[in-house]
């Protein structure tokens, strides 16, 4: 749990700081003009690249999981929990 919290905190910092930085970077002084429209499109393309990559990996993993760990797979073996008869579930 502590590791998860730590990981989430790091990810949040990595995402939030650059984004907020972009949002507020445009100062009033001459020469500090920042084209927010370009930045936001840039952010969008980066996010979509991440979303599609992660999507492909997760979808592929799920399809493989369903094929490999199906009950009828030749290599399927009883799980260690079947002997106890308690799968727990969310309980």
């Amino acid at each position, binding site marked *: *749990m502590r590791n998860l919290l730590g990981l989430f905190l790091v990810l949040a910092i990595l995402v939030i700081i650059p984004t907020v930085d972009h949002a507020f970077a445009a100062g009033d002084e001459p020469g500090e003009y920042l084209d927010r429209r370009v930045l*936001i499109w840039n952010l*969008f393309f980066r996010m979509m690249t991440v979303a599609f990559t992660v999507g492909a990996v997760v979808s592929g993993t799920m399809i493989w999981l*369903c094929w490999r760990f*199906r009950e009828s797979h030749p290599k399927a073996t009883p799980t260690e929990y079947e002997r106890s008869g308690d799968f727990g579930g969310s309980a």
Partner: protein
Amino acid sequence: MVLELQKPRPVWQIMFSTHHTDVGLLYLIMSIAFLFMGGALALLIRAELFFPGAQMIADSMTFNRIFTVHGTTLIFLFLLPSASAVGNYFVPIMVRYKDMAYPKLNAIAFWMIPPGGALIWLGFADFTWYATPPYSIISAPGPAADMWIFGLKILGISSVLGAINFIVTILKCKHPDMSIGQVPLLAWSFLSSSLIVLVAIPTFAAALLMLLTDRLGVTGFFNPAMGGDPIAYAHLFWFTFHPEVYVLVIPAIGMMYEIIPRFSRKPIFSKSSGIFAFVLLAIVSFSSWAHHMYATGMSFTEKTVFMIGTLAAVPASGMHVFNFVATMWNGRIKFLTPMMWSIGGIALFFSAGAGGVANAAMPLDFTTHDTYWVVGHFHLFVMGTIAFGTIGFIYYMFPYVTGRMYNENMGKIHFILSFIGTILVFFTQHVLGLYGMPRRIFDYPAIPEWVAMNQIATVGAMIIGVSMIIFLINLIHSSAKGKPADIHDPFGLGGKYYYPFESKNPHH
């Protein structure tokens, strides 16, 4: 055996019972009835849009009435009550208490829904499920609009009463030996979603009251002619109804947490991360409401804040998906109907979430605002994730409720057709949105791409319609004449079946 349907009891005994499984059964039957009523309206809408021009609906106002009641019915009268059905059935058993904390309040919360539903259906309002002001104030015909407002008011009170009951049952009535960390994830999902309801619904209750007084001409909160602002209504509405999405999706994920470990024959990979993700989702659900309103002239900073707030839901959603994948890993998965619905639900949850990430980014949001992309996106959530999770769980609890097994082949056909139909309708609607077709339109120009994609979506909807008829036949036939279930292991998983059957609380 104590069974609701197998053991004959007079209907009135179930109807006027305050026992949690009886109330749960009433919720279930009513929500399924409304699923078919709302679904029939969806088929009507899709049939109308098969070709450009008026086909079977006389005019645009009738069309508006149909999709208003379709949306209102499926959200408030199917999705919410079906989650309550599962919660009523299992939460007291999971926390090892004899009933809900306030059984009479529980029955009252249920019995507020039929009058609310009747007001919505008898009125048949035409201002969309968002009750779009200023139209809803100035020119939406009464009494339909007023009936809708009163109907929603009643349903809102019912939701709040139900939420209070779940929170008190879980936090105060759980067995003394059970720590809060030991409470099962399904019950945690109801705790999280009930907390959201308590915070979110009062805002909409206030907005409805303001809408009503505006309609009566007493006030002008949202009426520009009287100095009001329709955008203020948008804020109030979405402050409630963006979190409401999570109120619906969190219990559906909780249901998947019940099904996936058992059919994978493994315990859940990480219960603590599931709890953490539920709580996190409940919190961040309030940080994203204004992403529905990027096009209303918000400042860049506001838009950025709500974009980040929306994206904050991604890590929590990712934790759930990771948990499911890691649970299935190294398992011995039995692909029976409930498991198929759950896996289909996760796959579509992921697709819907990816669309949500794109929506949250304001550049694309401006392109897709009020187009069919939005329709495809939220339907992929409500149908692809929430309804899939719920229907899977209905199959899962079927032997527990009736003592009989449903027909497995029919269940699988139901899933396959629904999965194909859902992809055909809602993926196509995303593309249709990118082609620029606005949502909520009765007629459209005969642009070849628009016509073709509308026809694909309509065919998909008809496939879903056929699958739902199979579902209905399966439910009715199997509850009366299905094979008696092995009540301790109806799915042949070799382990114990969720909760010991003997744990079912006696009727009172």
